[in-house]
């Protein structure tokens, strides 16, 4: 606008300015002069150029806590950090998520089951806390002027079938579960046949069925409800990843703990350093990579420095099929003796399920392509044997998702690393991270803010067990 005024102002006087001026240009030529001054300054002062870039799309340069991974576990940690801080805005949290559509994240691709039938008391307590959280979800996740969260929780229960040889351990497990307060009932084969007539009880000696607080829910609504609530609490989000080339800002003091994180912005070559006090590794299937980039595992094997985080992505298939003669609306989440599981999906006689492959048949986790032969060869025979009505099923669709599989003992890692002291883990739950997410988030937030686990004692889940070799075996992992 200024230029146009000048043009109008100087226009009529062009004749008096002399023959040296060209038509269309005027002596002031603001932009060229600014460029010249800039060039001169650049030649005098060494170092970075003087332009001020627009950085509004970048994450802030400082944050107190950076959570790598914006899935259910990362968001749960962010939620509890903000909920447990004693004063408002006391702690600044940044969540770095590589894909805001969550196309490969385990949360969205999960079957969404929740049950209390674990053998470790801590896992049972986590499940009990989480179901309480989910039942009262709108008290926790209410945001002003936003619609309430509907988790579509189906309390149909979780049915575990055990053969003769597993019957004794199942009974023991149920005793532990009942001690912790879960309501599980044990059924013999006849009782099972009476309750669920569509089951073929051949080979089943004992079955345990959760009477309350078990079933499945919609992980997407939980994820988005949490995301909305966490944003309203003041947590910053950024879409970027922590890549191999530049991952962590090295510590200025020479020890192992990173001073901050390099975030590579999505779809660009731009890196933004974020200086932070605490890094939380909630990257799910990619947590192993993130831990490696922080220097965990760089050392002679057998030492604490050389102990890697044993979490790697494992691909699991979920198949959705239609069977009009199937079990019906009362069908719980059933876990067969062979390792095959299924549950009802929706009200139109659809079911979904799958099976964990054995170690030899592990599919390649490089992509999320589905192997339909796996269903025909490994899942369908056992399904048809257990529920005869499933002989006439027709597969509707299938998808694959990653487990953040802990190769050591298939149970999660929670808490700080003993050497890289400002990296906290909340990962490695190998398929039951979603159902324990509220409890795990609270445990990590307590560890960061208060220095220890206050409510559920998750110290058996610390990283040091990988070095000490103490496995936390919880049988019956789907």
């Amino acid at each position, binding site marked *: 606008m200024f230029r146009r005024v000048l043009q109008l102002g100087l226009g009529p006087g062009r004749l008096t300015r002399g023959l040296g001026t060209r038509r269309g240009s005027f002596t002031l030529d603001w932009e060229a002069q600014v460029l010249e001054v800039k060039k001169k300054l650049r030649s005098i002062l*060494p170092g970075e150029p003087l332009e001020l870039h627009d950085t509004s799309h970048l994450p802030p340069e400082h944050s107190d806590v950076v959570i790598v991974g914006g899935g259910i576990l990362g968001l749960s940690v962010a939620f509890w950090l903000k909920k447990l801080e004693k004063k408002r805005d006391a702690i600044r949290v940044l969540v770095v998520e590589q894909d805001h559509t969550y196309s490969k994240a385990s949360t969205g691709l999960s079957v969404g089951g929740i049950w209390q039938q674990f053998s470790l008391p801590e896992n049972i307590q986590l499940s009990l806390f989480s179901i309480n959280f989910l039942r009262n979800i709108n008290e926790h996740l209410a945001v002003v002027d936003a619609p309430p969260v509907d988790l579509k929780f189906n309390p149909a229960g979780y049915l575990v079938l055990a053969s003769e040889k597993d019957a004794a351990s199942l009974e023991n497990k149920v005793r532990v579960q009942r001690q912790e307060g879960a309501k599980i009932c044990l059924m013999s084969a006849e009782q099972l046949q009476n309750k669920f007539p569509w089951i073929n009880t051949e080979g089943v000696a004992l079955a345990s069925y959760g009477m309350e607080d078990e079933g499945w829910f919609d992980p997407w609504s939980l994820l988005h409800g949490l995301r909305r609530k966490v944003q309203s609490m003041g947590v910053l989000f950024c879409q970027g990843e922590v890549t191999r080339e530049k991952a962590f800002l090295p510590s200025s003091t020479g020890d192992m703990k990173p001073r901050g994180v390099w975030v590579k912005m999505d779809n660009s070559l731009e890196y933004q350093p974020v200086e932070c*006090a605490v890094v939380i590794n909630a990257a799910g299937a990619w947590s192993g990579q993130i831990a490696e980039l922080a220097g965990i595992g760089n050392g002679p094997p057998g030492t604490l420095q050389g102990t890697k985080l044993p979490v790697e992505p494992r691909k699991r298939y979920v198949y959705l099929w239609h069977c009009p003669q199937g079990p019906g609306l009362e069908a719980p989440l059933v876990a067969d003796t062979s390792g095959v599981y299924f549950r009802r999906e929706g009200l139109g006689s659809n079911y979904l399920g799958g099976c964990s492959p054995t170690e030899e048949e592990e599919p390649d986790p490089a992509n999320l392509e589905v192997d339909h032969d796996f269903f025909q060869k490994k899942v369908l025979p056992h399904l048809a044997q257990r529920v005869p009505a499933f002989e006439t099923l027709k597969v509707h669709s299938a998808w694959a998702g990653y487990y953040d599989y802990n190769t050591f003992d298939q149970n999660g890692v929670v808490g700080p690393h003993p050497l890289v002291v400002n990296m906290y883990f909340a990962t490695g739950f190998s398929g039951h991270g979603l159902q324990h997410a509220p409890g795990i988030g609270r445990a990590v937030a307590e560890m960061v803010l208060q220095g220890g686990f206050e409510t559920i004692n998750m110290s058996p889940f610390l990283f040091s067990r990988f070095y000490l070799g103490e496995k936390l075996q919880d049988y019956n992992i789907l």
Partner: protein
Amino acid sequence: MLKIIIPTIMLLPLTWWSKPSMLWINTTSYSFLISIITLFSLHNHNDATHNFSTLFFTDQLSTPLLILTSWLLPLMLIASQNHMSKETVVRKKLFISMLVTLQVSLIMTFSAAELMFFYILFEATLIPTLIIITRWGNQTERLNAGVYFLFYTLVGSLPLLVALMVKRNQLGSLNIMLLMFNSPPLNPSLTNQLMWLACMMAFMVKMPLYGLHLWLPKAHVEAPIAGSMVLAAILLKLGGYGMMRLTIILNPTSIDMAYPFILLSLWGMVMTSSICLRQTDLKSLIAYSSVSHMALVIAAIMIQTPWSFMGATALMMAHGLTSSLLFCLANTNYERIHSRTMLLARGLQSILPLMATWWLLASLTNLALPPSINFIGELYIIISSFSWSNFSIILTGINMLVTALYTLYMLIMTQRGSMSHHMKTLLPTFTRESTLMTLHLIPLILLTMNPKFIMGHLY
């Protein structure tokens, strides 16, 4: 005075021509030597002023501030070594040059004999400070902080320029010593009231007064450690010093005009102390505590009795050392944990016990524990404000309580309690850091023994 100014100016060639390995050593040691020279002006015959020339003079008000200024330069250099270690040599030299330029302007400001000279240098201190805050501060908010700082102070001081020129035309000269004998009493007219406002507003913004204090938390928090130190210790005192000099020419208008400002500062003192209790950011807490202490100083200067002036100068000196010490302590936290949030840096006493000692001593002086000079300053001010009005004791009493509350809150949050896990591998205290703290504390303790030096010109 040239014996101080010329060596300080020569610190500039010293920084640019030093070898990079000797850069910090050279500048720190020579600035220490310069600070010893300033001690010579303490020697006073018969309470007279030292008149070095028509331009420079020092008396018992400006001498302690001058010594504080020159003592603080080596301390700023010691404190900046760590966060500047990653920069290139040219940038380090630029930073030190900014500090030295600021130092020259400050020394000349405190020893200025003429009010116009004082004003020019008062404004000149803004530019190096702005550059230090916006170039070497830590977060993106520092640009906002620099803008607030610059424009608040500038807008406040423009009326002062006009007022000084008017006064010079009226009185013929603005030499402070002449003004003491030369200034006629002002008649109570609107013009003179506006002139009173024009003279005082610049310093009210600088102190800062409670309603005009918004720039201070931003500037203190976003500045690098040297910036915070110089801001808290010296630049705030420029306001107090200016007010004390200008009240000579503003009588008797001050008696009526000062009333709202005394009220505002007494109220603001309690308000900002209460805000400190709710702060989560350590530097922000120390910044608000500065506002609170300076509010006491403003109230004292407005009351204009000998006791209040003594209290004001004592508190200015004491607060300069204490506040700078607290900022240095907060900076040692920040350099280790990379976060200023207090929640994340707890239980430091178990891992850094020596640093805990410095924290304890700093907190004790901040909450005005007797017999420290902070206590003497606050006591004199509280006594004089009580004599000005009996009711003010309620506010000042509440303030002493809340000051103790937030100081102890800061001490207990950072030092006591259980450690967070991510602090287990903190580096132990550097000797440099401990030196920095002792160099703050030794003057505080020595002055406690003999506070008459800081009692100002009405002692």
